[in-house]
Every structure is written in C-alpha cells, then in structure tokens.
C-alpha cells in the first residue's frame, strides 16, 4: 500500500463568527489548505467533511458550493469530538486503498456558548441535576476524580494544565485566547464541576481546519515532497466494554486501545514522540491522557505536569497550540486543527512555539459515546 502524506494544511484563527455560516467557514480553511499545497479544487478527487451540528444537512456539499462544484464524491462525517479526525482518517483510508491519489479533508463547526451535554433521561421530566450530572464539565470532573481516587492527583495539579496551555496559546496567533492565566487565577475562577473551574473548561468557539492528502506517487508527481509530512499511523477505536462504562464514560480504555494500535502501526513507542496534541477538553482530561498515551507510567501524570515535562521546552511538549482549553474546541474542526499544528512543527514553521528538532508528532481526540482517533505524523525531509 502507498504511503500517505499531508501536502497542504491550514486553519482559520478560532473565534466567534455568528454572522458567518458553516459552509463559509469550511470553505475558508479549505482554500487556505489548497493554497498551502499550491493546488486547486480541480486537483481534488474526493472531499471528506467533518461537522457535527449540521451533520444531517450536507455540510461538505455546501462547502463545495463555496469553492467549486466539481462533482467529486463527498463523505460527511459525524463522530462527536472525534468528527474532524474521522474525516481525516476516511481520506487517509481511501488513499491507502488506492481509490484516490489526492483528497481534501475539512473540519468545521459553529458553536453556541454555554454548557454542553446533560440531556434528559427519556422520562417525562429532565433528569439533569436529579440523577447526577451529565454536563460535559461534570463528566470530565468524574474522569479527573477517578484519577484522584487512584493516584491522589490534586486540584492544583489539574489546574496547572490550564496554566500551561493558556501560556502556550500566547505563542499561537490562531488561538482563540492569548492570555496568561496564573495558577491562582485558574484555581480561583468560578467552580463549574469540582475540580474543573471555568478556566479549566475548553472554549466553545467557531472554527475550521483543512488538510490535503496525497499518495506518494501523487506527491512526487506534483512536486510536493519538500514540505510533505508522512502519516505513519491512523488508529480509531470505539469504547470496549469496561465496568461502569455505561454510567461513567470510560475515555481511558478507548484511548489505550487506539494508542496501542497507533504505536504498532507506526513501529515506534511513546518515547519516540517529540510533541503531542491531545484532547484537553477539560484540564482533568489532559493528565489522564498522559498515561493513556504512554507518555509516562500510570500514576505519574501529576508529577509530569508538576515537573514541566509537557511544557514547551520539556521532554514531550503537549498542546503547544494552546490546546482545546485556550486555542478553542470547535468540535468538528478540532481533529484537523491538531493535524495542522503537528504538521506545522514537523515542517519547522511553528514560529515562537516551535518544538525544536521535532520529527514525530501525535494527535489524539476522543468523542464521547465513544470514539478515539490517534494519528502519528513524521517529518520526511
């Protein structure tokens, strides 16, 4: 099977754009990624579009109306917070299978403000706040509290994740925020669901990101190998059964299974990874995923954040983009924005936040329900 390369990628600056539409936002990132590759829509053989909230309304075809209706096949993907990564993976798989040489993957989302999750229980009355809480901050508070239960992880350690990622975002002009948030400010912010304060919750923003993928022969024929980045692994899992999984979504097992597959595909171990963009939808999530991705041993996540191992300049920088916490989390765009970030570092084009000498990067998203997608990218030249 052919190798698959990212030959063009970009994202818009995340923000709030209530006067624009999903197709307009998606089109902007698509055109930027095409420009990055030096290609046009006429070179694309298929479009894979990730969008969650308008999934029943043909978002990919509507993007094409904005950038050129060439008649290519469009696949619309929806997979909770793994939506963008799913679209990317579908494009990857199609090239691997030999169906196409060059495809476009777009992730786009328009979000409202406020709490997500916490739907009713199907009875005649809403059950949120009556039978526990199903809001996203609460679900991920439970994730963190399980780590506290097992390893004694503290509120302060979780809060340090937000300090780090907000600091990183000050170096990323495409992040929603570029504001330092000292530890006291993070811990003193409004408590949402203990231990997640408001500054430990990801930002609901609008955004889009896109990537152009090519087979090895196409990348060479088009003269695009110079800045190409190889996709060394694409792993996706659904949640395997674990006790309590149906009551308290288990984001650990689904990630560990995907990580194992991704490392096997890539023929590397976690010690070979130079930077990671992982799913910090809440500060509590980042620490558990250090361990799920094998960046440290079980129980070492708290120490890792204490010792700065995952900060820019540390042993394995995590979320140097600012992460979902500060760059923002437009659900369908997030997975491809991660690809943009890691690709940019592997190309040596990340400016002030550049992870020096980066050769291998990993992206991770997890969607509740659950879906986990992990990609391993490698510098070619």
């Amino acid at each position, binding site marked *: 099977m052919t190798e698959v390369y990212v030959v063009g990628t970009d994202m818009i600056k995340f923000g709030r754009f209530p006067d624009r539409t999903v197709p307009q936002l998606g089109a902007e990132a698509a055109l930027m990624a095409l420009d990055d590759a030096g290609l046009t829509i006429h070179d694309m053989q298929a479009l894979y579009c990730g969008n969650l909230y308008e999934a029943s309304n043909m978002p990919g075809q509507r993007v094409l109306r904005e950038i050129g209706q060439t008649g290519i096949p469009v696949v619309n993907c929806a997979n909770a917070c793994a939506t963008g990564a799913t679209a990317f993976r579908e494009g990857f798989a199609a090239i691997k299978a030999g169906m196409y040489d060059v495809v476009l993957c777009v992730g786009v989302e328009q979000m409202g403000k406020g709490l997500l999750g916490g739907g009713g229980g*199907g*009875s005649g*009355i809403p059950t949120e706040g009556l039978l526990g*809480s199903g809001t996203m901050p*609460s679900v991920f508070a*439970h994730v963190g509290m399980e780590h506290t239960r097992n390893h004694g992880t503290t509120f302060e350690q979780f809060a340090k994740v937000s300090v780090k990622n907000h600091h990183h975002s000050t170096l990323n002009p495409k992040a929603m925020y570029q504001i330092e948030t000292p530890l006291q400010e993070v811990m003193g912010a409004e*408590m*949402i669901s203990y*231990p997640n304060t408001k500054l430990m919750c990801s930002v609901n923003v609008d955004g889009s990101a896109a990537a152009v993928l090519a087979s090895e022969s196409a990348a060479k024929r088009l003269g695009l190998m110079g800045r190409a980045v190889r996709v060394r692994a694409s792993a996706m899992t659904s949640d395997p059964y674990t006790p309590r999984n149906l*009551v308290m979504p288990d984001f650990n097992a689904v990630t560990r299974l995907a990580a194992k597959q991704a490392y096997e595909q890539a023929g590397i171990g976690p010690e070979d990874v130079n930077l990671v963009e992982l799913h910090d939808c809440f500060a509590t999530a980042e620490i558990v995923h250090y361990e799920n991705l094998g960046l440290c041993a079980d129980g070492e996540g708290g120490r890792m954040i204490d010792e700065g191992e995952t900060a820019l300049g540390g042993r394995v920088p995590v979320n140097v983009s600012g992460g979902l916490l500060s760059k923002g989390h437009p659900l369908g765009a997030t997975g491809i924005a991660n690809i943009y970030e890691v690709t940019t570092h592997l190309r040596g084009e990340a400016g002030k936040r550049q992870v020096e000498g980066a050769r291998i990067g990993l992206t991770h998203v997890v969607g509740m329900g659950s879906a986990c997608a992990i990609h391993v990218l490698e510098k070619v030249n």
Partner: protein
Amino acid sequence: MPEAESAKPLPVVSFLKIPEDGEPYLEGYKCGACGEVFLGERLVCAACGARNKMATVRLADKGTLYNFTVVHRNFPGVPVPFISAIVDLEGGGTLKGNLVDMVPSPEAIKFDMPVNVVFRDAGRKDKDGNSYLAYFFTPAS
C-alpha cells in the same frame, strides 16, 4: 389538580420499579454467561456478547461511593450546588445519581464511603402535573 396530586407517582427511569404492594426498588439485568449486571432491559450482553442470557435481578439498596463531583454551575432552574455521585451497588451494578443529606464539599466526601439508595419525590412534575419518584444516595453511617 386534586387528581394529579393524589395519583401514584411515576418512576423517573424505566429501571425504577414501584410494586403495587411493596417498597420501590431498582431492577437490573444480569448476564447468565458472564455475570455482568446492567441497568435497564437489554437482549444482548454488552460485555460478552451472549444472546438471550439476560435475567432480571433486584439491585441492592446499599453500595459504596466510587466517584463524585460537586456541581456548582448547571442549567437554569437546576438547584446548585449538588453532588453527582457514581455508586457501585452491592452484588453488582453501577449507578449515577445525586448524593444528598450531606454537605456538598469535596473535603466532606470520601471515596468508598458506604451509601444507601433511597426513594423520594423527584421535586419536579411533568407538564401534565404528574409526580415522579426518583432514587437518591444518602450516607449510610
């Protein structure tokens, strides 16, 4: 109005059973092949995939606190703060619910503390004025 107030409360979830002549209880489904216990009716075991092995089981009204969070911000109209708790029931089954009758402070709540399952009015009515019976957790000691 008087009819609704005197009417029998409805169960807040399908697995809360209210017998005509007895105390309310929670009903689970247990897999005859692997022994896993689930809330609510199902035909196939999610753990082992066995078909037609599910049998109803009356879940215990005692358990231990596996996990909790104290919720301070919620949707408009939902009283805060409250404790969202995940409890492992004796004999199998895991359940999420509100832990009540204690201070909603992380310092006061202990992992593995014993809890009881109690049944009380939900405090919410549907648009037709029906009352609902809900389950809650209370500290056992």
